[in-house]
């Protein structure tokens, strides 16, 4: 069941991290509005294989907006023109017949291109490894209901924990800052009593690693919040700044 949309794509092609890349034009025809954006790429790739051309490499896995793997920069916006969704949740009904769509990878010094639209986001993992956890070995936990947590704090912590680590916040920021991502994890744990004992070392270590990875600084433009598919709030950055100042103050004593 094919559809009736014909589109022109300008897609970033880059053979590997050392090669120079460029935008290449592709025409795609008979696209159905019910297809997802990635399914439209499947159709194009299927054709490229039939023409014996290397298909376009892009990251994806769950295709339902939760794994954080998909990462296309579409017409100047990470995850495309609609708010609050990932690339895999974008459907072709958000475009018009005849549109020209430009698709690029995330661009940031800390996210080098691997191939075409695929980038390396392992910097995020290293930031978490630096402190984005609660140090509790398996088997040491007390009964889960021993420590009541106010519903508001639990809900707020959950809202911050909803970050999928996609990197759209970095991709959209003119400074390529990772503050929204880092502050989401800092906030999630700072809002819970379990996170209390390590809250100072956590924020200091995570921020140090963030800087070491080459992410830029935050100048409060708020583009990250606007482009975040999971609605991670800027208030997390404010909370992290408070935590950071507090921690610095204490560690300087």
């Amino acid at each position, binding site marked *: *069941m*094919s559809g009736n949309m014909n589109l022109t794509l300008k897609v970033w092609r880059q*053979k*590997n991290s050392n090669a120079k890349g460029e935008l290449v034009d592709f025409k795609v025809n008979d696209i*159905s509005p*019910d297809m*997802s954006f990635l*399914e439209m790429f*499947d*159709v194009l790739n*299927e054709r490229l*294989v*039939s023409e*014996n*051309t*290397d298909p376009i*490499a892009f990251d994806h*896995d*769950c*295709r*339902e*907006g*939760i*794994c954080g*793997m998909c990462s296309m920069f579409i017409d100047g916006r990470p995850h495309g023109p609609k708010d609050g*969704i990932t690339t895999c*949740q974008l*459907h072709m009904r958000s475009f018009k017949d005849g549109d020209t769509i430009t698709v690029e990878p995330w661009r940031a010094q800390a996210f080098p291109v*691997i*191939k075409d639209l*695929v980038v390396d*986001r*392992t910097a*995020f*993992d290293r930031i*978490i*490894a*630096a402190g984005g*956890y*609660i140090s*509790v070995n*398996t*088997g040491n*936990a007390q009964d*889960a*209901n021993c*420590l*009541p*947590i106010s*519903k508001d704090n*639990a*809900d707020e*912590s*959950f809202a911050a*924990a*909803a970050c999928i*680590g996609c990197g759209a916040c970095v991709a959209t920021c003119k400074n390529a800052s990772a503050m929204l991502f880092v502050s989401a994890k800092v906030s*999630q744990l700072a809002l*819970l009593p*379990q996170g209390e004992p390590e809250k100072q070392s956590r924020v200091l270590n995570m921020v140090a690693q963030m800087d070491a990875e080459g992410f830029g600084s935050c100048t409060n433009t708020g583009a990250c919040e606007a482009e975040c598919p999971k609605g991670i709030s800027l208030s997390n950055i404010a909370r992290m700044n408070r935590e950071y100042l507090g921690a610095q103050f204490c560690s300087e004593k």
Partner: protein
Amino acid sequence: MSKLDAKIPEGQLETKWTKYKSSVPLVNPSNKRNLEIVIVGSGLAGASAAAALAELGYKVKVFCFQDSPRRAHSIAAQGGINAAKNYQNDGDSIYRLFYDTIKGGDYRAREGNVHRLSEVSGNIIDQCVAQGVPFAREYGGLLSNRSFGGTQVQRTFYAAGQTGQQLLLGAYSALERQIGMGAVEMFNRHEMLEVVMIDGKARGIIARDLITGKLERHFGHAVLLCTGGYGNVFYLSTNAMGSNATAVWKAHKQGAFFGNPCFTQIHPTCIPVSGDHQSKLTLMSESLRNDGRIWVPKKKDETRKAVDIPEEERDYYLERRYPAFGNLVPRDVASRAAKERCDAGHGVGTSRMAVYLDFTFNMDRYGKIEATKKGIHNADAATIRALGKDVITEKYGNLFDMYKQITGEDPYQMPMRIYPAVHYTMGGLWVDYNLMTTIPGLYALGEANFSDHGANRLGASALMQGLADGYFVIPYTIGSYLSKEISVKSIPTSHEAFVAAENKVQNDIDKFFNIKGTKSVDHFHKRLGKIMWEKCGMARNEKGLKEAIEEIRALRAEFWKDLRVTGEANEFNPELEKAGRVADFLELGELMCKDALNRNESCGGHFREEYQTEEGEANRDDDNFAFVAAWEYKGDNNFEMHKEELKYENIKIAQRSYK
């Protein structure tokens, strides 16, 4: 006669695990430092095992094919995780969770394993809360619960519709902590392509670096496969695009028996297929059946819109057929009932292959409660609906958004349209009580093993099993093997077995490029999926299964003659990755059909049309089929079946009834 020893400890069911734990041989800390463990997979099972084993002091390497361990498919689990905490004071207990799981699995799981699972279920919740997993809470600050299918208590813990995400991020943070401390070495974007065997034991793996294409050799005193399920053999499923069977299939071909390959779970509530372009199916969590009522029009080929069909012309067929459990019957039962209604001409939507999942009734019920709480008397219908809508949004908001995004329809205004889809595989590598496969030193955890769910998994039990295996079972059971390995020095990867395994993998890769055919990998995958869905899906019969086996063989031959893999081996090449996975699915699919053909009974998710009661329920045959079918690979797609008899000493085996 049988080669299979499940190694279930002797003694009373309730004390088996406790006794085992206090008598299993231990490895002392200085020896642990010299023992290396390879873990393939970073989902709930793999990440939790890696963290727990590294905490104990073992040297651990972890592999995953995604760009980060946090993206393993467990991230997508929505509804919740079971635990026998009895926080609701509604009569839950370890025994009841055990009983529900055995019954839900249609009496095809082991008592010993399932009881252990129930025993550790509570520890999982404690551990996760301590890690900072933000489960849903009540206003008093305590944890909240909901119901899932096949149970009559509220024992499911959840974090909105993102429970898997939150649990995995908890396990991932524990794993990253160990990575940061240097106790775990992580290999992202790596795919394991072979198990390396030395003197009959698993001693490592061959993995391909997916960025450079380079093959690598990794030694381990033991190897853990935590590689998830194989639902993608059907092409369309709720699994992630990359989910695959390669790791378990390679292990199977090296000698690990495959348990109950045909036991597949078809989930009743998924968004229906919308066209040929469809690449995956999206689940609408079972938790929705807490508040959604399933119905179809009583009239065949109904053309009116759902809202225009009056109450008395709706058939709430689950409530009608199964009054005791209603909309919360187990998945296999709900799926078959939906298929039955659609096949009988009552389906809805353009394809007529869908049923309604309707929230209006409970939205209004909640609305009235809210109105009372707020002291609004005589609230009008619109106010009630709006108040109720807020309650529904809080519980399932992200699922409603997801539905709207995919279908373009607003489920607050009109009922969802849903249809069953492939979701989970109960089958997997056969393991004993220690979670060891029939290959010494090779373990399987999580969805990759066959163990705890029998012929049908209850909702919210996979997350429980994955974390039980990783956090609380393997740290003990691996000791019984590794305690005998302490004198084995790490084997250099220049060993001939590593060289031979790498050469084999290289040959397999070269073979793909040498075919130089005309059709893409997806082309073959879609055709395989169609055969499997039609003939080895929700309903199976002898004729269809025999045909399927022939068709799969023919398709496999065509694949090896006409496949085209573009690009090169020594680069980032998703087409090559897919080719390897589909080649394995093409073999596994045949074994699934064989197993289904062999099992002349209906049980759980395995429904053989020849074996049904007059009311159309599954007709189990306990005299002849109360066993696990464990298949041994005999070369060239020949398989031999071994039986592990299932003995029920604590549960009286009965016909499963949800009426």
